[in-house]
């Protein structure tokens, strides 16, 4: 994933670049917003990570200008301030996600992959998460390279969970997404489909976790790092 990182703190920039490389990203770094604007307008990146607190023009202003000029690259904002106004402003200006420092690299990587997944699913048909890959055009799925047999409803649920990952999807939203085609879907029905999906994912590195009372989320079957923070 070709990534542009705009961060003025050299130590942090190096850490992020190295860390994302370990997750398979290709990272280039810039220390200020002005050159980044030119670069992002000229070159095609899969992802941009912008620090809000940049010298000169700040990250939010850069974001605004880029979106105003039709740059559609998925963008994730990094901030030390965590003021709610910043967060809301950023999302309103067109950022795809927002992360407060300090954060774990694993979470940064997961969020980056999520926003790229979401944007790609709009632009192209393929969405990938670890060993799982789905094709929105053909409505097919593959696990570890082998095709996965899914009914139409199971596929819809899986797509919804993948695009939302690592977030929990409330059950009512799953009911809604199924109900677009079939008005008689109840939440009990969703439970049945989920358990079938679970069966088909058995043994894989991904699993569907139940968060009782809320919904489901697609997660790593065996997480090894410490808990992540949700900004």
């Amino acid at each position, binding site marked *: 994933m070709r990534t542009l990182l705009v961060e003025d*703190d050299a*130590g*942090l920039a*190096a*850490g*992020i670049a*190295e*860390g994302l490389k*370990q997750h398979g990203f290709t990272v280039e770094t810039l220390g200020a917003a002005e050159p980044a604007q030119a670069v992002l307008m000229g070159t095609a990146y899969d992802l941009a990570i912008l620090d809000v*607190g940049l010298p000169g023009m700040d990250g939010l202003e850069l974001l605004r200008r880029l979106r105003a000029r039709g740059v559609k690259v998925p963008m994730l904002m*990094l901030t*030390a*301030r*965590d*003021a*709610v106004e910043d967060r809301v402003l950023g999302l309103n200006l067109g950022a795809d996600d927002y992360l*407060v*420092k*300090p*954060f*774990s*690299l*694993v979470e940064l990587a997961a969020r980056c992959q999520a926003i790229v997944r979401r944007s790609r699913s709009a632009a192209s048909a393929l969405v990938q998460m670890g060993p799982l890959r789905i094709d929105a055009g053909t409505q097919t799925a593959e696990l570890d390279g082998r095709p996965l047999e899914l009914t139409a409803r199971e596929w819809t649920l899986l797509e919804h969970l993948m695009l939302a990952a*690592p*977030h*929990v999807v*409330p059950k009512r939203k799953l009911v809604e997404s199924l109900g677009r085609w079939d008005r008689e879907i109840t939440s009990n029905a969703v439970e049945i489909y989920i358990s079938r999906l679970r069966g088909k994912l058995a043994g894989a590195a991904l699993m569907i*976790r139940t*968060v*009782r*009372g*809320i*919904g489901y*989320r697609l*997660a790593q079957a065996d*997480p090894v790092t*410490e*808990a*992540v*923070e*949700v900004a």
Partner: protein
Amino acid sequence: MSERGRPAGTRDIAQPADTPLLTAPAPTAGRNQAVGAPPPPVRTPSLRRRLLLGLALPLLVLFTASAAWDLRVARRLTDDAYDQALASTAVGLAVRLETDADNDLAEHLDATMHAMARLDAPDAWHYLVLDAHGRRLAGEAGLERLLAAPPPNEPAFSQAVIGGEPMRVVNYRYEDGEGDVSVIVAVGLHRRDAATAGIVGATLWPNALLTLAALLVVLAVGRIVFRPLDALGARLAGSRVQDLVPVPLQGAPREALPLLAAVNSLMERLRAAARSQQSFLNHTAHQLRTPLAALQAQLEVLQNEPQADPLGERLAQLLATARRLGHMTHQMLTLARAEPGAAVVVHAPVDLVGLLEEVATQGDVAAQLKGVELEFDPEPATVSGAAWMLQELLSNLLDNAIRHAPAGSIVTIRCGTQADGAAWLEVADAGPGIPAAERDRVFLPFVQLGAGAGGSAGLGLAIVREVAERHGAAVTLGPGPDGRGTAARVVFPCPPRAA
């Protein structure tokens, strides 16, 4: 512990009549609680009392003076009347003697005087008539000692004791053709005194009633005059003074305006101080967080490269420490930002079910690592408040619960609306629980039970309490549903009834 997390006076509108005007919020239990003797009681002067005394005392003094004056006037009036009667008797006696030709008047006089004495009981009558040479013409000889020599035809009065009784005495010298006749008449004082008492009594009652009525009017007016002050006190107590919102000046009595203006000016200074503190906090945050993020990122990178032990082990510890530092910084900044005056908090309706959904992801990730199951039970509930603060509150409660819950147990997170319309939320775990004796103390910053469970800074509950106070909510810690573990319950205030 069943602690009301909100400051006193936030919702009580009815104030008792004699409370001082500005009531300082009572310190919430568990915070800065002095150990030992209670503080000495504060003497508060009362305007009402001052007004009442200032009006009542002069009234009573005036009443007493008026009564004394009435007494004096009554005495003088009765004295004049009775003395006049006494003088008339003396004159009558003298004239009778002058016209008596056959000197047998003495017996007549005696009989007359005895009849008068009987009529005037219990006052006794005594008399003596002497001729120009001092010879007794009629009456009692013993009265000679009372003889005076007044100018002719002018009665002279004096007091004397006759037969053990105090008496009023008149001396009258009558001039006839043959020389002077001296008449002495004495009468008791009982009737005279009774008449005086009667007059005084008749005037005293109306005076007393008038004074009493005046006092009651003063009391009633006092109450009416101070009503605006009571209303002002209620308004100040009910206003969001804690959030440094200026007190509105309209409708306040003019005399209170300087005081209110001073309060508003003080709050403006506090707000300015809070703004500069907020600005400092923001800059501090920025400065601290970036190096912390760099530290953490670099350690993670190192850790991902294959390491020979024990370096790998040490890296894991370094990384854990860096994460703890980052978490504690976040906690401290949250706590500072949640304090009153740190920022102007804008309240908007917050859906608690949405809040639970937002927190579910972070919670489930932590729960999965710990081997704990989460169970949510959201019922519709809405709170007027600041979403970021409420999210921190819930997030900290959930964090604590997961931290203390044993692997394999269930942490429950519930929200709902009570019958009286108050929204609530509750997080419960099956961990070691909090002993009743500690239930106040755990809310203090940096207090942790046990040996600091897994990297916690001890600020979570302090944040929870601070956010609860900003929202007028009450936090209670109690045992979990089956008597074990901990259940933290936050109950928000009932929504105001629509007018």
